[in-house]
């Protein structure tokens, strides 16, 4: 039975109204065909391509073009983007805000990318901040966060979160902490901060639709860090942290029906525990362990999936 036939039957049974049949029937038969997603994808790739081209051009031709021309051109682009956004933006709201125009989100994203390029150029060419050069990364992150929250833009939010991550990494290495251990500590602090922001946002009711983005990034940073640490001298400490985080993640995932967190909580601790346990084992014992443990985990996840996560 085709979907069009189903719709007719549901209408006959009174499950949908004639008006709904008309709208849904047009979608199913492709009488109405939306190219919204395709146009958004073109805009996104277009903006990324423009930013990549600008970066490439500036890197290659800055000597020929001269600082004044480059800084002026980049400033004009940023100013135009910012001007467009402020002139078209809807008033701030803590709730989700629809984009006022089709290109609004992409203009803002382009403005932020070009701003980052310009700031990086200024810092590298003129070293305005001296030894505090990493402050421009933090400044970029702050500007991106402000723009993401003011204009309700998830692209810029992702940019802000990754820029903040970059600042954490460089801040620690700047102070001479260049070992893998210090990078792990840095990543854990970053994860905690981003997760803390998510909790704060939820409590304050500010942009609640941003919370999941924060939590996914925080969870990924923390799980990867803790898992990679299980084979070090401090492995037991990392393992304990990993198991504790897994428990929290699974509980949160089941309660909020966000099953990505259940999956994180199942896979990462398994990998971490297995890396720790099989450190000194031979091939046969390791393979045998793999068969038994992965089968047990599969059964466990099936039970969880049947109990809580049936929705496809």
């Amino acid at each position: 039975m085709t979907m069009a036939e189903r719709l007719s039957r549901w209408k006959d049974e009174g499950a949908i109204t004639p008006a709904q049949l008309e709208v849904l029937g047009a979608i199913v038969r492709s009488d109405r065909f939306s190219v919204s997603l395709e146009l958004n994808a073109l805009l996104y790739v277009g903006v990324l391509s423009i930013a990549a081209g600008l970066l490439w051009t500036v890197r290659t031709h800055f000597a020929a073009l001269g600082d004044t021309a480059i800084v002026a051109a980049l400033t004009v682009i940023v100013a135009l983007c910012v001007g467009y956004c402020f002139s078209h933006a809807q008033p701030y709201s803590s709730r989700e805000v629809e984009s006022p125009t089709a290109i609004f989100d992409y203009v803002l994203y382009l403005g932020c990318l070009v701003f980052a390029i310009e700031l990086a150029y200024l810092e590298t060419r003129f070293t305005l901040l001296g030894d505090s050069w990493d402050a421009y990364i933090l400044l970029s992150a702050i500007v991106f966060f402000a723009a993401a929250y003011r204009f309700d833009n998830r692209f810029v939010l992702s940019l802000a979160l990754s820029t903040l991550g970059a600042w954490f990494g460089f801040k620690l290495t700047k102070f001479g902490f260049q070992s893998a251990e210090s990078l792990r500590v840095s990543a854990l602090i970053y994860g905690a901060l981003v997760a803390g922001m998510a909790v704060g946002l939820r409590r304050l009711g500010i942009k609640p639709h941003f919370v999941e983005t924060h939590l996914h990034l925080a969870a990924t940073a923390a799980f990867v860090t803790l898992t990679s640490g299980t084979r070090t001298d401090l492995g037991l400490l990392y393992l304990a942290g990993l198991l504790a985080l897994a428990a929290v993640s699974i509980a949160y995932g089941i309660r909020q029906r966000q099953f990505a967190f259940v999956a994180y909580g199942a896979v990462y601790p398994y990998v971490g525990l297995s890396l720790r346990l099989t450190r000194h084992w031979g091939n046969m014992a390791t393979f045998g362990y793999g068969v038994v443990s992965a089968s047990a985990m599969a059964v466990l996840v099936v039970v969880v999936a049947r109990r809580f996560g049936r929705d496809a």
Partner: protein
Amino acid sequence: MNLYATADEERVQAAAQVREWTQSGLLDASRGVTIEAGLRTDLKRTNRYLRIALFIFGTIVVAAAFGFCMVAFDVSRGSVVGWSAVVAGVAFCVLAQLLVVQFQLYRFGVEEAFAVWSVALLAVGAGLLTPSGGNGGDLPMLVAGVTAAIASAFVFVRFGYLYAAFAAAACAALSAFNLGLSRDAERIVSACVLLVIFTVARTLRRTHDQSCRGDDAGAIESLAWLGLYAVLNLQLSLGFIWYSRGRPDFSSTFYWSTYAAIWLLPAIGLALAVRDRHRMMLWANTIMVAATLATNKPYLGWNRQTWDPILFGILLVAVATGVRRWLLSASDGHRGGFTPLPLVVSADRQALDALATVAVAAQPIAPRMPGETPAVEPGRGGRSGGGGGGADF
């Protein structure tokens, strides 16, 4: 042949559509729940994240079980490893089918892992059991590729995994490169294989219009078309497109024929996609247009300029805004049924959320490391003595 009843799969697909419509406000929640309840099946399913987790654990089981047998029986000879892989492949394929038949698992991850890795084991086993040598071709690779294509097609027919069909098409097309033919001929054979797959899938799509089988056939059709383009675009095989240089070693006639093809294929494909309102073909041909624009200069032997991506980006933005305005300028906001406005909002939003997540990777900030001196003397144009030639930022 399929392990699942067509009616069940249609119900699953219909339920997913009803959920999207409900989330998008096209159906009110109470009606949506009632309709979805009427579409229930006995199939056991889960959400995509637990499916991925189960696929990972299933993969570990397959790898560890095979490794355990190899170590336990001290298998090291190539032919024995090959036979073991074949036996393991068959065993895991049977196990996957048992899980489906016995427990009615549907896209549950674990049975998918067994089915997918059974293909890999069979292909590796067949390749290891084939003696090398012959007439210049790579016979073991050819046998492995053909085996993978047949086994993947079997998995698609039995389980309905679309990615298995994609793998079958890719393996069949790539097998042509192990026949020991000339560089021109191997691409022609590969393109012919993909053209046959495209034609068959297109026929099937039109036969099963508006059904899940038709959707699968449409996806295979689009991928085969995209593969056909990839095989014929000689510049794509030269590595990362923005950095490829020069003309590969092909005959002049073949080279310029492919140049014509990379312009013709997207044009024909876009016309077909618009006429048939075929979304997957629309995506495939949009990618092809972008690839043609990106590889045009190297095809002609021209140097790429640093501002090429800027022009390319401006073109994409102009096309997107132009098409949107043109469609909206019609009296009722659509032309021939095409509209730039989202119809099923939740589906578009999910895709854009995924795009926003990918945006984490687009990070233009690349500061120098601690202790690293600026590449250029502050305020000047390049390293001293280098005339600015080695300058970078």
